[in-house]
């Protein structure tokens, strides 16, 4: 191809030249050029090597339909269509699937063996001994671009959600007209187009609308919309349509800014996405120099590039005449091969009627064209038009069904889809909308020119996936006659291209081969996205903490100042331990100090869900495994919440503040789940005017004072309450005052020591903590992190839900049966507690495990094992395991089969290759009588 720059070009600015490289070669262009138009103007005819055969390939199209010219952008994205990348100074562009470059590719020899590598060759040939042995090498030879390792990936796309009355997809004449009508009727309109400018075909086809040149009219309509405050999104592809008229749009930023992903929910959608020109099925129709006739018009009028000097234009319809006349006017030598014998042609053009192209001639570029009557025409470009395929992807995604139209040889939208209207070329109405046309009808009579079986030459059906007519014939011979099978067997219509240029020719050949009509063959499913969308756009900024925000304590800064090491616990960032030094030593020291003196602990994430109202007590009787209505005001009770299947869902303390007011103090990692469960049952089973639920977990901080000297510390803070055990015994709750603010003080312990949980509004947490720290100095208080707390509670055999329980644990596994025997009213999971499984003798029960082999702390997760007749069977596993500073020895908890009735037994525990010995002991290893709670 000897393409050349002509005068003009409405998209480019000749006062702003630029330069970039392609496969190391310098390329000049102008601002407004695409990489494709600049390469074409620069005389680069081979832009890529084909996917499978490494055939040289040039440009076929000018927009999203381009199947061949995929390029890698250094520091940018791989496999990008050259037709859609704006040319820019300093860009480094590489051809894909070619080594060392597209011009001289060392795998080009593959094409010589093409007859031996038809569709499915790889599957059939490399089966023995194992496809995976061959796969890496084959993938290297076949395939597309490579990711530049220096690429940081695209910047996170901004995501925008919007509602509108009318979304118009496509800003060609039909789309603009629809948008203007809706806007003038007062609708909120969004108009989008994948081009950088509005106008669609008006940007390159001559038209006069309402007295103005088409492109000017288009710009005026867009300006009118914008003046009305409506949105016109250019460079934006509507890639998918989803339930309830949600449309996904990908907006490519023009200036290196992040892309945008729009989710637009429209009351109605107008699809005006135009139509895509099809190739003609002649021999060697993939040669560089064979180009879509419409694309050639785009390059000429938009970019001032003529596709060749000696041009043959082959068409089975009348639209290509505009290309012919324009190129002739620009100075090219043009011959039109019109497949229609009775065509009316414009004067002054050389036109051969009733003939077809037999084959394109040339090695790596077109040098001549051989016609069906044997005539050979010398040519450096062969522009083809095989008719137009309406772009119906979004309509089909919206569950539309297609009809076949014999007069235009195309699938068009059939039955209407609620809220989705298809207009213009996308609906098969080629040419201007009637109310804009002003009598200038375009000649779109078309004759069939489908691929025929048995061609001697190779005829490409799918350029991107290297599928030829012979591959389709092979598929039919092997009985892959369903269109979906054809696609999967030959790869026709796959990959980034999704059959935009190839589908209909493939279907027509399949119809011919199987004696069916094209509509009987049907089409494959149209799936989003219409064009590739970077995954980064779907992700947007939702990664890391934006995907899963960390919950932070009101006192985080104070803990940091105290040298806390933070870790995440159940979504909360909490102090694991305080101070520098070996973590294990710090943790042991904290635990020991809490047992010997007093410790301060931030328990703010603890669940605090208020349950209020006259029916609160019966409601909580239903929620809990335990009876809660008998709880006296001012008292607390520990209990389980089960699932309906009878498994333990959560545990915790319920406080009764007064007759009609309770606080559910659930596990800190479980608050959302428990809150949802309470709401569901409240609304489904109870009178929701008589029970109310309010989750105040994040609104309040809970600061805990624990240890033998806890009372002295709390007394010195001064909370205006009596602290003697008659007024505030273990498992009681009272209201006090701190600096005039109501606070709640509960005698609840997770350490086994006397403890005071003081809950204050979160904005008072700093003041209370400061006071506690100040009082603590006099008492020698230590700061207690989560790790030390975990040791203290394990010494006592207190469980952590999800750690010491699993999805099969039931209350009976923890030795609890009393509530079930006494409780008369219904509660969640009750019926499941009398199933065979619930009463089974082999249940895994919660016990302590004491290492007896002198080899230190048992590994958490180690399985208790039983060996029988050479087989090893799991008896359960270690759930928690620590070194106990109070007992000066390792302690562990576990769920062990029949554990409660096997006290004193020694069992083997296996962890990886290590086998340990442990004795089954009671789960509470420290202060079994609980004397310290009252000390």
């Amino acid at each position: 191809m000897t393409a050349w720059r002509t005068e003009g070009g409405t998209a480019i600015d000749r006062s702003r030249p630029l330069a970039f490289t392609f496969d190391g070669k310098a390329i000049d262009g102008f601002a407004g050029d695409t990489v494709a138009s600049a390469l074409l103007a620069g005389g680069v005819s081979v832009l890529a090597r084909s996917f499978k055969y490494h055939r040289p390939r040039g440009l076929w199209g000018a927009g999203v339909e381009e199947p061949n010219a995929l390029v890698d952008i250094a520091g940018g994205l791989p496999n990008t269509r050259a037709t859609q990348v704006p040319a820019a100074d300093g860009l480094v562009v590489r051809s894909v699937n070619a080594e060392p470059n597209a011009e001289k590719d060392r795998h080009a020899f593959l094409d010589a063996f093409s007859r031996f590598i038809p569709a499915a060759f790889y599957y059939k040939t490399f089966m023995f001994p194992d496809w995976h042995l061959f796969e890496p090498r084959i993938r290297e030879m076949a395939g597309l671009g490579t990711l530049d390792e220096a690429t940081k990936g695209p910047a996170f796309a901004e995501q925008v959600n919007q509602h509108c009355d009318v979304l118009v997809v496509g800003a060609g004449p039909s789309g603009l007209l629809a948008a203007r009508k809706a806007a003038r009727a007062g609708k909120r309109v969004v108009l989008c187009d994948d081009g950088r400018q509005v106008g669609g075909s008006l940007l390159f086809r001559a038209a006069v609308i309402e007295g103005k040149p088409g492109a000017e009219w288009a710009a005026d309509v867009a300006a009118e919309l914008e003046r009305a405050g409506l949105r016109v999104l250019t460079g934006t592809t509507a890639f998918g349509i989803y339930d309830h008229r949600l449309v996904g749009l990908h907006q490519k930023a023009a200036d290196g800014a992040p892309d945008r992903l729009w989710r637009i929910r429209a009351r109605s959608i107008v699809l005006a996405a135009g139509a895509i020109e099809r190739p003609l099925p002649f021999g060697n129709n993939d040669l560089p120099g064979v180009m879509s006739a419409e694309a050639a018009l785009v390059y000429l009028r938009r970019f001032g590039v003529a596709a060749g000097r000696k041009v043959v234009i082959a068409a089975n319809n009348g639209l290509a005449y505009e290309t012919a006349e324009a190129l002739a006017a620009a100075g090219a030598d043009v011959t039109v091969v019109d497949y229609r014998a009775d065509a009316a042609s414009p004067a002054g053009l050389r036109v051969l009627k009733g003939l077809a192209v037999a084959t394109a001639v040339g090695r790596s570029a077109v040098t001549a064209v051989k016609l069906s009557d044997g005539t050979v025409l010398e040519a450096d470009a062969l522009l083809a038009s095989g008719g137009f395929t309406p772009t119906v992807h979004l309509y089909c995604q919206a569950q539309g069904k297609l009809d076949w139209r014999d007069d235009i040889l195309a699938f068009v939208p059939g039955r209407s889809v609620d809220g989705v209207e298809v207009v213009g070329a996308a609906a098969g109405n080629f040419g201007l909308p009637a109310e804009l046309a002003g009598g200038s009808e375009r000649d779109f009579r078309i004759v069939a020119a489908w691929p025929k079986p048995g061609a001697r030459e190779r005829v490409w059906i799918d350029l991107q996936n290297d599928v030829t007519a012979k591959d389709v014939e092979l598929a039919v011979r092997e009985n892959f006659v369903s269109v979906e099978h054809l696609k999967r067997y030959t790869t026709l219509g796959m990959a980034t291209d999704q059959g935009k240029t190839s589908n209909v020719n493939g279907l027509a050949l399949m119809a011919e081969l199987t004696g069916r009509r094209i509509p009987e063959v049907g089409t494959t499913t149209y799936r989003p996205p219409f064009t590739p969308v970077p995954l980064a756009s779907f992700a947007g900024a939702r990664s890391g903490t934006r995907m899963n925000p960390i919950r932070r304590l009101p006192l985080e800064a104070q803990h940091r100042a105290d040298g806390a090491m933070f870790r995440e616990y159940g979504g909360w960032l909490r102090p694991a331990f305080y101070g520098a030094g070996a973590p294990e030593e710090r943790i042991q020291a904290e635990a020991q100090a809490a047992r010997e003196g007093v410790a301060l602990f931030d328990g703010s994430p603890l669940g605090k869900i208020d349950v209020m109202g006259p029916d609160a007590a019966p409601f909580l009787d239903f929620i809990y495994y335990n009876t809660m209505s008998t709880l006296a005001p001012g008292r607390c009770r520990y209990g389980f919440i089960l699932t309906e299947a009878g498994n333990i869902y959560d545990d915790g303390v319920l406080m009764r503040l007064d007759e009609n007011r309770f606080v559910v103090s659930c596990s800190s990692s479980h608050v959302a789940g428990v809150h949802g469960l309470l709401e569901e049952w409240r609304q489904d089973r109870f009178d929701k005017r008589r029970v109310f639920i309010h989750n105040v977990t994040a609104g309040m901080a809970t600061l805990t004072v624990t240890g033998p000297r806890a009372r002295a510390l709390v007394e010195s803070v001064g909370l205006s309450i009596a602290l003697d055990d008659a007024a505030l015994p273990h498992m009681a709750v009272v209201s006090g005052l701190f600096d005039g603010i109501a606070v709640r003080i509960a005698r609840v312990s997770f350490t086994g020591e006397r403890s005071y949980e003081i809950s204050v509004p979160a904005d008072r947490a700093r003041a209370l903590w400061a006071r506690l720290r100040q009082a603590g100095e006099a008492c020698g208080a230590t700061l207690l992190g989560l790790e030390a707390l975990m040791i203290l509670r394990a010494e006592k055999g207190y469980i952590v839900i999800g750690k010491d329980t699993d999805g099969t644990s039931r209350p009976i596994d923890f030795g609890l049966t009393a509530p079930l025997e006494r409780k008369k009213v219904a509660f969640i999971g009750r019926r499941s507690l009398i199933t065979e499984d619930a009463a089974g003798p082999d249940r895994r029960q919660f016990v302590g495990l004491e290492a007896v082999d002198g080899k230190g702390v048992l590994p958490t997760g180690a399985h208790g094992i039983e060996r029988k007749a050479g087989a090893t069977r799991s008896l359960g596993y270690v759930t928690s395991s620590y070194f106990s500073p109070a007992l000066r020895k390792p302690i562990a908890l576990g769920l062990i089969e029949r554990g409660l009735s096997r006290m004193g037994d020694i069992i083997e525990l296996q962890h990886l290759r290590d086998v340990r010995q442990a004795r089954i002991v009671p789960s509470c290893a420290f202060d079994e009588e609980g004397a310290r709670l009252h000390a």
Partner: protein
Amino acid sequence: MQLFPCPFCGPRSESEFHFGGDAGNHRPEGFRDVTDGVWAAYLYERNNRRGAASEIWMHMACGEVFRMERDTVNHRVAQSVALGKGGGNDGMAH
């Protein structure tokens, strides 16, 4: 992404809702009289209806639990109904 009408908030994105189960899956009351079969059906047997379906959903943003009539084939939503104003058990699967 579907639009579901919350009786309290109006139409909101599907992602804000939590599926509760089929409506009308009434909890068998009592327990000794409830057979294993009846209880297992309540816990585990689901209809996965094609076409018209009546389901319980929760709007996570406001906490409203409601019954929604919708079509599982064409995703048309007929209506959403708040659960019984004064108690009543519309039945959901837990």
